[in-house]
């Protein structure tokens, strides 16, 4: 199975793409301020014959938190899949620090600092908390540092270190996913619907962590369907509908647009 299967979303891990290697050597975080650290330019993507993205363009600059909003089926998760390398775009350019990386495998992107926390938590349910964290060492982070850092940041995880991840609550699982992403010291952190199915109080807690990560200088892409929390910590927001970006701007301006599209104008 090659990564160049065109239309088919590929989970291949064939890598060795020159741009990815070069990026690894240069360090993704070293990008100059005026070049976007991540850019999608007119990206198209399809599942089989069904076109899902019709030319999505967006930019993320270094240290910026960008939120991507839209109703179910708007194409947000597909956009994330392109960013994480799980799906190869059929047209357009995916640029990291100005270099085209179309077709790079997810594991290759993960190793150069693109950390994706997929929808539905992205933990290994049958592995213990500690083992889940150690999986981050495949990104190149030393194992010893991982545990110290994660348990310091999330004391709750330290209490449950030998518990199978699948037996924890949804919020704890999400916390674990976040911790695992963080300890790899990513240049870009991509979060897909981390609040899904969680109680508001837990979501608040999670977002306080995300805000801290943002302050530490990591570039963050957040995808959310219901999104006051995300807007509150974002620098910029994009709204998607029917596979394209329909609006871009200041988070404060987006609230009105959103309420209309989600709940109807009931007020």
């Amino acid at each position, binding site marked *: *199975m090659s990564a160049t299967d065109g239309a088919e979303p590929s989970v291949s891990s064939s890598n060795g793409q020159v741009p990815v290697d070069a990026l690894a050597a240069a360090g993704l975080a070293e990008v100059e301020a005026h070049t976007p650290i991540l850019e999608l330019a007119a990206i198209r993507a399809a599942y089989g014959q069904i076109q899902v993205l019709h030319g999505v363009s967006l930019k993320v600059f270094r240290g910026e938190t960008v939120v991507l909003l839209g109703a179910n089926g708007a194409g947000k998760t597909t956009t994330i899949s392109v960013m994480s390398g799980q799906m190869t775009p059929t047209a357009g350019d995916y640029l990291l620090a100005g270099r085209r990386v179309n077709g790079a495998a997810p594991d290759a992107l993960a190793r150069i600092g693109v950390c994706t926390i*997929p929808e539905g938590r992205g933990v*290994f349910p049958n*592995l213990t908390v500690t083992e889940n964290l150690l999986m981050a060492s495949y990104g190149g982070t030393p194992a010893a540092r991982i545990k110290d850092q994660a348990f310091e940041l999330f004391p709750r995880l330290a209490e449950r270190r030998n518990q199978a991840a699948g037996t924890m609550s949804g919020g704890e699982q999400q916390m674990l996913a976040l911790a695992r992403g963080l300890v790899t010291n990513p240049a870009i952190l991509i979060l897909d619907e981390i609040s899904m199915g969680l109680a508001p109080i837990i979501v608040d807690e999670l977002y306080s962590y995300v805000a801290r990560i943002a302050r530490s200088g990591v570039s963050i892409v957040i995808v959310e369907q219901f999104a006051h929390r995300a807007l509150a910590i974002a620098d910029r927001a994009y709204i998607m509908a029917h596979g394209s970006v329909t609006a871009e701007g200041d988070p404060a301006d987006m609230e009105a647009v959103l309420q209309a599209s989600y709940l109807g104008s009931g007020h």
Partner: protein
Amino acid sequence: MDVKEILQLVVIGVAMGSAYAIAASGLVVTYTTSGIFNFAHGAIGMLSSFLYWQLTVQDGWPVWLSVIVVVLGFGPAVGAIIEFGIVRGLRGSSLATRIVVTIALMVFAMGLATNIWQGQSASLPGFFPDADPVRFLDVALSVHQVIVIVCALTVAVGLRFFLFRTRVGTAMRAVVDSPATASLNGIKPDVVSQLSWAIGAGLAALAGVLIGPMLQLEAFALTFLVINAYAAAVVGRLRSLPMTFVGAVGLGLFINLVPYVVEHIGFLSSALDGWRYQPALPAVFLFIVLMLIKDSSLRGARPTRARTMRVPTFTESVLGSAGVIAFTIVVAQFLSNDTLNRLQLGFGVGVVGLSLVLLTGYGGQVSLGQMGFAGVGAFAMLKFGGASGNPLGLLAAFALAAPVGALVAIPALRVRGLYLALTTMAFAQFMDETVFRHEGVFGSTSNALGRLSIFGVSTDGDKAYLVTVVTVLCLLSIGVLALRRSRYGRVLTGMRDSELASATLGIDPRAVKLVTFALSAGIAGVGGALMAMANEGAAAEQFALVQSLPVLLIVVVGGVGMVTSAFSGGLALGLMSIVGKQVDISNLDLLLTGVAAVGLSRSPEGWGVGLADQVTRIVPTSRRFAFLPGRPAPQPEPVDEVTPADVTRPSGVRAGGLV
């Protein structure tokens, strides 16, 4: 009741179970990490046995060096090569293709071994053959048996340590949980998968070296010993290593203690008198385990690269058949009797292949034991057709094989496709070892079978009989196509596309599968009757388990969704038999079908479909070629393809990972 004797049997059972445990744990490791059930697992063990024998006995290498070369070199290398060359090409392919490709490897390995080590029926000495037996609990154990038990314990502890205490092992469990998430963590699922195949095949090689001395060195028997490993692995639901070990030891005890029990219970021993039931005990064990598994979830639509064939109309199928029959009549005039006879057999097998077009091509279920049903059909023909060639015998063949098919399917249909495939294999082994070899079945003398006599017209001559076989194949094909176009055919297709949706429309999935399986077994029964008449007598060898496998392969290679594959398959088997006799290569059919079917990992829908595509390309929209498949419909790949057993389970929660 002799306590000492029982103890002795228990200890031997544990030793045997230990060897099965090593093999079965390798099977589980590869299956969970790659999603491919390696039917060739036993074949790797068999080749390892032979290679070890070659090195030590023939070439005089020291034992320790041979063990290292076979277990740490040959086995893992074979596993890694299979993963790289074949398994990676199988992503997103249908269950049938996944099963068929490793079956092909198995068949090829058997063909290879019988040619390299032809006729060298040898026995392999165990480790330290001259050492005194060890005494334990008043029971004598050979040093070899002790080594086997120690090896199993080492493997159990070693795997546990590897999977839970090492980084790579943990990554392997991570890939089992979710390959997509693993790759997002920077893990390369392909590398992990390759490693798991190397480990799995290494364990198969170890099992081969250990089991070889406990039995005769014989390619088929050693290969099919893998059924024991399947049975043990199924106890662990193909996932759990501890349960697999429990299953293996349980099987070892079962095999050793059941004969003792039978011997000591009067009515059982008289009832089983004359039946070679012992070789079938693993199959019985597998059946019992399957009866205990409960899994009622429904399979949802899973995108595969499956293609849709346009179904020929009634007129097209009748005209096509008329053409084939006319062509056969003409060609038959120019062929020798030996050639005619080989073609008769080939097309007889083609009818068995047709039963798979219905079951596998239309229904999406895989059977590895169609020859078991064919043998039932041959038996019916023998009893009802007899020497007179009464055509009612063919009806009887259908009528007897069909309920047997339903009976076999009942336990397996409670679970899923792969289990059905395993069950049918176990069934075929049971029929092969126990039933067909019983005196009263195909007997020794009273086995004269006349060829069909239709309204007083005998088809005794070789030309006439070839035409008869081809005609029956055509008629059955017309029938199968008519079924496919009927309401039942649409229900069947719907079931193949999505069991879940079918059930919510009011279709009872199990009833449909059961009927399909029975019909398919019935057709195979007719095929068996035709095969027996070609030889003018039925013999157990014709319907051996190993004969079932090339049938499946050749039909899948020809495109299992098209009835034409039954014709091309029958013809190919006939031709291979003719050529094989000329060039004096034994089991040429095994070698060639093995190679051809391995190629399926590159062309998963069968070569026939590829050929049809070429023709369609040359003659694009001609109505005359409307019976060829339409344009391909590209499909997204399944996102999570590693755990075929849990498509409908809630995401994120899975019952037990690889433990």
